[in-house]
């Protein structure tokens, strides 16, 4: 099956104060399978978030190409990238980044508005919140919810407009193991039922085997790829 997203030879260079280059991501290529949970694992500074940002069109690589569904997304045209972010993908942030002035319902609904979702908003929002088990807290404001609950609302928001790809940057970093596993379980359910692919980063060693594919990153390069679950393959 065609991969949903392909990154080829992606490079991101930062320059320090004395002008010396620092390769945050150095010639990385990867393919994201459809309906899979891909994990980017590595220590802080290994380049996994940078890679994730580039794949989600938040950041531009210095060289290399990233294509998603036959559309190249590493183009300077902001419009194309905005459209891509609006409709094709969902994003879950490390810091729980719900919009503080909106309640759970409105937060989820907001992404429907943004993507121009065709269909009944209410039905879809309730559906998504049910999926993350928060239907009864629909009208609570973010500050009235715990960290885990907020993160689940963020997940509901990320999937609401039926994206093909969901990016999650350390979604479990601020959660305890129990809650973290719950989140992973939600992810897996989503892949089953919503026909999405999820790419997440983590530095949590205990989580690398929960995904379908796991890339290990170090100093901006992929140093290992583990395949678990359905396709048993190793390095």
């Amino acid at each position: 099956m065609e991969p949903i997203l392909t990154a080829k030879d992606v490079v991101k260079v930062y320059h320090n104060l004395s002008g010396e280059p620092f390769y945050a991501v150095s010639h990385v290529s990867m393919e994201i399978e459809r309906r899979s949970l891909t994990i980017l694992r590595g220590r802080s500074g290994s380049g996994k978030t940078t890679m994730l940002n580039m794949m989600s069109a938040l950041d531009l690589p210095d060289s290399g190409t990233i294509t998603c569904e036959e559309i190249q997304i590493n183009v300077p045209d902001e419009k194309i990238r905005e459209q891509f972010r609006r409709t094709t993908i969902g994003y879950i942030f490390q810091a729980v980044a719900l919009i503080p002035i909106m309640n759970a319902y409105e937060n989820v609904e907001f992404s429907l508005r943004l993507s121009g979702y065709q269909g009944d908003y209410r039905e879809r929002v309730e559906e998504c919140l049910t999926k993350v088990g928060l239907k009864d807290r629909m009208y609570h404001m973010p500050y009235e919810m715990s960290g885990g609950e907020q993160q689940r609302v963020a997940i509901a928001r990320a999937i609401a407009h039926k994206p093909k790809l969901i990016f999650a940057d350390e979604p479990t970093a601020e959660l305890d193991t129990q809650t973290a596993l719950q989140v992973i379980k939600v992810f897996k359910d989503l892949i089953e039922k919503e026909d999405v692919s999820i790419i997440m980063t983590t530095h949590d060693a205990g989580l690398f085997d929960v995904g379908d594919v796991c890339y290990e990153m170090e100093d901006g390069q992929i140093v290992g790829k583990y395949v678990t679950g359905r396709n048993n393959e190793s390095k």
Partner: protein
Amino acid sequence: MIRFIIEKLMKKKWMVISLFIGCVLFISITTLSPIYKHGALQKMLTDRLEAESIETQQYPMLAMAQNEVFYYKKEPATCVQKTETDAQSELQKLTLPYLFDVIICKAAPQTYASNIKNASDKIYQLGFAYLPGMEEHISIVSGEKMSETYKEGEPIRVIVSKSAFQKSRLTIGEQLTFDRLRDENGDKLIFEIAGVFEQEDFEDPFWVDSAESYEKYCFVSKDVFYEQICPGIAVNDQAAVIDNTVWRLYDYERIKYEESKNLFDTICSIESENIIFPFREVLAGYIRDSRKVETTMRILQLPTILLITLFIYMVAAKMLAMEQNEIAVLKSRGVYSSQILMTYLLQSCVIAGAAMIFGLLNACVLAKLVGLSNAFMEFVLRRSLKIALTKEVWSCLFLSFAFCVCVMTIPVIPKCRITVVQQKRMRGNGAKAVWKKYYFDVIGLLISGYLFYNFHHQMESIKQRVRSGESVDPTLFLGSSLFIFSASLFLTRMIPVFVSMIYKIRKKKWGISSYTAFLQSIRNQEKQSFMMIFLSATVALGIFNANTARTINVNEETNLRYEDGADIVMKEEFKSNLAAIKFAISKGNSDPGAIVYTQPEEIKYQKLDDYISASAKVYHLEDISVKGTSDFTGNGNRTAPSFSLDRGCVTLMGISTKEFGETAYLPSYLGDHHWYEDLNKMAVNPYGVLVSSNMKKQFGLREGDCILYDVYDVLGRNTGFGKGVIVGFVDYFPGYITQQYAQNADGSYALQDHYLIVASFDLITSKFGIQPYERWYKNKKTNDYIYSFLEEEKICLQAFSDADNDVVRMKNDPVFQETNGLLTIGFLVSLLVCAVGFLIFQIMGMKERELNFGVYRAMGLTSEELQRMLLYEQLFTTLPTILGGIGTGMIATKLFIPLIDVTYASGTSKLLPARIIVSVLDMLQLSMIVLIAFSLCMWIIGRIIKRMQIAQALKLGEE
């Protein structure tokens, strides 16, 4: 610690700069008060004394001890000298710095015999005067000096002033003898006119009475006066009087205004029949007005001070909110609350301390500026105030320093107890503000409404209090401030309600930008409320200040011009046979005939034609009486209601309608029709008269009623009557004072109606003969010409007024100066504070929301949409706030300015109804500043968003 604080301050330099600006403004406004007060009151004291001196042609501040010594005693010289020292010691009770004493001893003029004049000539008299130290203040114009001592067998040489020389027709070398002045042997003393002198310097204060005024005296030396003249008079004439006068010339420039009250009390206790202080009345008036200067100052400053306090508090609270995390972390790591508090206290001290220096300098500059203010937003060059740093200034400085520190530190107190945990719990949990919970806004509005109602009903008594020089209840002014601040709070409560109502119209159907902006404005109101209160209060106050100043200035000027009637009004003295008539009456003639006036030469006035655009001759007769009469026109009018007005309460004006209409000044907004219409009605009927409306009201007069007016001459004799048909009623007429405050026996003031009749100039002339009339002029450009004209022609004036000059004098009045200056400063400060506060608040708010923006952008919101969202937010919060502020300012203007205007009554009463002046220019200036601040803010926000790296913003949020 200090280094830590300084580093901390450096990190938030924009906030610190704003706080600093706030503190500098606060300190300079509060310190300005004592500095200006000192300078202005001092200047006012000097000015008043000098003005009085110009009027009376005397040294500004002198005391006069006058004693008459009767000489029948053996040692007259000792006696005179004793009187003199007594007087001086009495004067010594008033411990004021003085320049010197001028002492003059005069022996009354007596008839003399001359060796030149014939006995049949007119009888001349000459007295003797001894003025110690006069040698240094005179120059001998002809002849020689007086002799120092008497030498037997030689004539005593005396000197006379130029005027005495001319008036008494003296000649140099002329020898005089007086019957009563003889030497020990009984021989007549011989006096020789040795020289003629004049004042060396005509400005010399030594000449309390000018040398020219000694028309009937010759001056002699001390020796001669005491050794020859005194004994001579004493021996030969028991009734002869020697007049000893001590003038003490105080150094009025060194007198401190603070001492004026004590000074006044001492003067009152010293003053007696013999000792008088001509400046007493000036001092009394000064004390009364200086109180007004002080209260006005405090009152005008109050709103501005409140505003700046609000500003400092706002910035400090904002800065604190940004540091909340740091505090919580410190607290959680075991730092004591007191230590945190201490850090902030020190930090506040550093800021306020630095501000103190600049504040003081700024205050000095501002005080000078206030002294130079001429009108609202208008300054002129004039003698600037002397700036002195009195004790009061220093205490004020340190008090405001302490106050600033408190305002900056107090918000820390509740925050320094909060740990990380509590803080997380509180985040986003916007508690309802205290004022909202307890309805401070509504309460404030109700109180200000009550104050308004209350004062509105007491308007008359307030007017009277102002008239009698009492200071006005400051709560009168508090009403407007309270109204402005409460209305701003109320607006802050109401605006989100309105916005949410608009939101509900379409609810979810709003576009993405407006939807988010709506939610932001409705749900985030607690955080924005402070900024909204501030913005609306600033705008309202700015408008109110501007309108107050404009209204007071314009109304006062209009009143002055109305009172004068025209640009220049002057009355030349008319020659008449008055003296002859008086003489005839004194000789017992009961019917010496009418007074006949001769018109002054007309031709000289043609010189003015180039400088004036119109002129009119106007009769202004005060001594008339009026009564109603039956119709004499034959038009079948009714008989007028019977009434009679006694002399003293009615004025008769005689005008030629065309000239008068062109020359006189009457504000066009008065009355429901143009006053020219009244003049026209008068013009078509030779007997037509206009009468004041109060006569219509009081006596039920109608148009067509006939009246008779009796005119009395200066000797109070009835000179006949004139007839008139009422052709119109006037509420106001150039120069007509509708009501006058008359002081009752118990000292209170009451309004009394004054009446007016305007008749034709020619009719009055034909009926009563030519009477002394006034010349009214309308200037082409400036008023300079009139003074050179008067100087050149040496016109003897009976009355004169120059409207331009009166307006200048009004503008030099410290109360007006400070009103204009302080209101201007208040207006500028509110503009500055408004712009800075707005920018700081918005930009800081944007920085706080950066993570949010990152999220929006990551979710695919375009940067245009984001900017549009922010613009909408401004439209939903800032715009209605500013509009609300303008509305509040205008309402406050409508309600409270008439009240404030009343307290500025000067000179006579407030004649014309107060008119509220709103200057479009001020509104434009204010809007421009707001617009500039707004655009700048939007530009900066736009740049922040454009430059924002989404990934970076998100990262920031993670930290």
